[in-house]
């Protein structure tokens, strides 16, 4: 059992609080992403778990044992660094073998493990080469193979794909998923790329400004973001936020009326751009379209709703002219209502 329990971790660099009370439980064999914009504290949290950085306060246990104060090597984990950190003065074989050599594994086991890891990541042809001869994607594979060769209980990855070009990133993403699923390792994966997190993760922890804003499956987080930040950060285009007046617990949209979780004042409608349909003319939520972009697979509309910026997606079969006003029909089950004061969403309607 290599579950990970992160309990009220705080970290300050001088007066600056990089992590403000972070708690998160990761189950055995689970793949959890830490997703957030650059500078939000993802790497810091990962390094604290690894033991490369010490927390100001809080506790971390791996496999039921507190690891605070333990050096990295006694935590039973392996790590893949953002810039790979593949040793340039060792052959690919020796790089992959490094962890086993440090464990003083015998030669037969080293060979067996290196061959297994190299096979998983398709780097057998390069085992005798030096890393400088390899492309970014190949080095990336070496870094992952080096981590998997020690059969770690926990695998930590810090933006492992961010240095690859877009096409390679997609390819490696699919491959990582296959490899890691078969290895069954508990994995914490740091990324600022939401598609990566959505595609790979069992669960995602969205980090913002040193805090975890929401933890959930990709679908949960996508459909029901806990905060305005999460909704705006995840999804492409991001969620639209339209502030509307509430009258007696109801919001009037076109000819329809939606009951909302507050009785008066304002409320924010969180609207995923692709959850709308085009309403018959003169009905629905009015959107002033500034630009209509046919993307092939869909039609992207940019403009405003109730004088607030909005982006929605219609089927590619629709035609909309720039400057036109279109009516949109909402699906009450697929909208999120948020408080205009703190940007926290109301619980999803049952």
């Amino acid at each position, binding site marked *: 059992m290599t579950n990970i329990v992160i309990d009220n971790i705080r970290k300050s660099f001088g007066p600056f609080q990089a992590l403000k009370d972070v708690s998160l439980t990761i189950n055995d064999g689970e793949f959890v992403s830490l997703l957030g914009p650059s500078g939000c504290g993802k790497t810091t949290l990962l390094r604290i778990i690894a033991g490369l950085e010490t927390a100001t306060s809080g506790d971390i246990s791996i496999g039921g044992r507190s690891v605070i104060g333990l050096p990295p090597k006694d935590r039973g984990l392996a790590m893949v660094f953002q810039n790979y950190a593949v*040793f*340039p003065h060792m052959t690919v074989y020796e790089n992959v073998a*490094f962890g086993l050599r440090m*464990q003083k594994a015998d030669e037969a086991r080293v060979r067996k493990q290196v061959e297994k890891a190299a096979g998983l990541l398709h780097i057998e042809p390069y085992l005798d080469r030096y890393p400088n001869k390899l492309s970014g994607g190949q080095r990336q594979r070496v870094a992952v193979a080096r981590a998997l060769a020690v059969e770690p209980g926990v695998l930590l990855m810090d933006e492992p794909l961010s240095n690859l070009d877009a096409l390679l990133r997609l390819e490696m993403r699919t491959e990582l998923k296959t490899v890691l699923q078969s290895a069954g390792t508990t994995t914490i994966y740091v990324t600022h790329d939401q598609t990566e997190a959505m595609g790979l993760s069992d669960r995602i922890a969205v980090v913002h400004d040193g805090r975890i804003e929401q933890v959930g499956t990709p679908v949960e987080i996508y459909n029901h973001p806990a905060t305005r930040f999460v909704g705006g950060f995840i999804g492409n285009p991001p969620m639209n936020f339209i502030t509307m007046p509430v009258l007696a617990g109801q919001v009037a949209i076109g000819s329809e009326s939606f009951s909302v979780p507050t009785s008066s004042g304002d409320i924010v409608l969180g609207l995923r751009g692709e959850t709308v349909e085009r309403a018959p003319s003169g009905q629905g939520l009015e959107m002033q379209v500034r630009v209509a972009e046919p993307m092939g697979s869909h039609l992207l509309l940019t403009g405003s709703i109730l004088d607030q910026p909005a982006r929605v997606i219609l089927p590619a079969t629709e035609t909309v002219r720039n400057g036109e006003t279109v009516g949109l029909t909402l699906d009450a089950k697929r909208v999120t209502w948020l408080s205009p004061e703190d940007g926290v969403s109301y619980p999803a309607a049952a």
Partner: protein
Amino acid sequence: MTQNRSWIPYLLILPTVVFLGLLFVVPLIQTLWLAVSDNGVPSLANMQTMVRDINFGRSILNTFLLTLAVVPIQIAMALAMGSMVSKVNGGRETILWIWTIPLGISDLAAGMVWLSILQNTGYLNTLLFSMGLIERQTAWLTYQTPVALFVGIAIAEIWRGTAIVMIIIVAGLNQVPKEFKEAAEIFGASPWTRFTRITLPLIRPALQSALILRTVLAFEVFAVVYALGGRNFPVLVGEAYNWQNQNQNYSVAAAYAVLIMVISLAATLFYLKVIKVDPERLP
């Protein structure tokens, strides 16, 4: 258009080539000729005079012993200092600045500093006397105390010349991304293993430069030795100086100069061969 101007780079390089030619190559050839000629005729007479001189063997031995004692200690100290300072967050520049102070002092002045410490009425004796460890002034720098003299000179040389090694090593250490050491740490390498298996191989180029520079300079040691030991501790450059100034025999002095150059070149070749730097195996 471009072809018309192909002479411009040569024009720009010309002053340095002329300068080096006049002030380095010409004297070098003159010195070589001076060493291997006698009254304008090729001859090994100067070499023979040099080799037969009673101080010749001692000056070679002393120079090599000093180099063998000083250079490894300087490299080891520079590595230790560089590694320590890389762990420091605040005040790094100040520490480096203090460590490099000896660089700003001429070697003769450095010799005088250590003379004031080690001479009979120096600070060392005063300190030892006040602590009751010695009863009267002790001489450290005479031909009767060769070990103390050697140690004194070696310490002064180490004090004077470690900073330049450290600067090169620190520059090399700065080139090693910390992720390499962290990756090694994650995979279970002890601090010593990280140093020997990761850091040292990755700073090979800096190590090579530092060794070449320091060894060549060590073969040229003179002012510190002269200040502390005078003629009690003959070294190669000191002998060249004596033949030039005391004996007014420029030819034998030239023979010494050529010998020192040959030894330096041999040492450089040795390091280039032994510490190979393969650019393919660097970050």
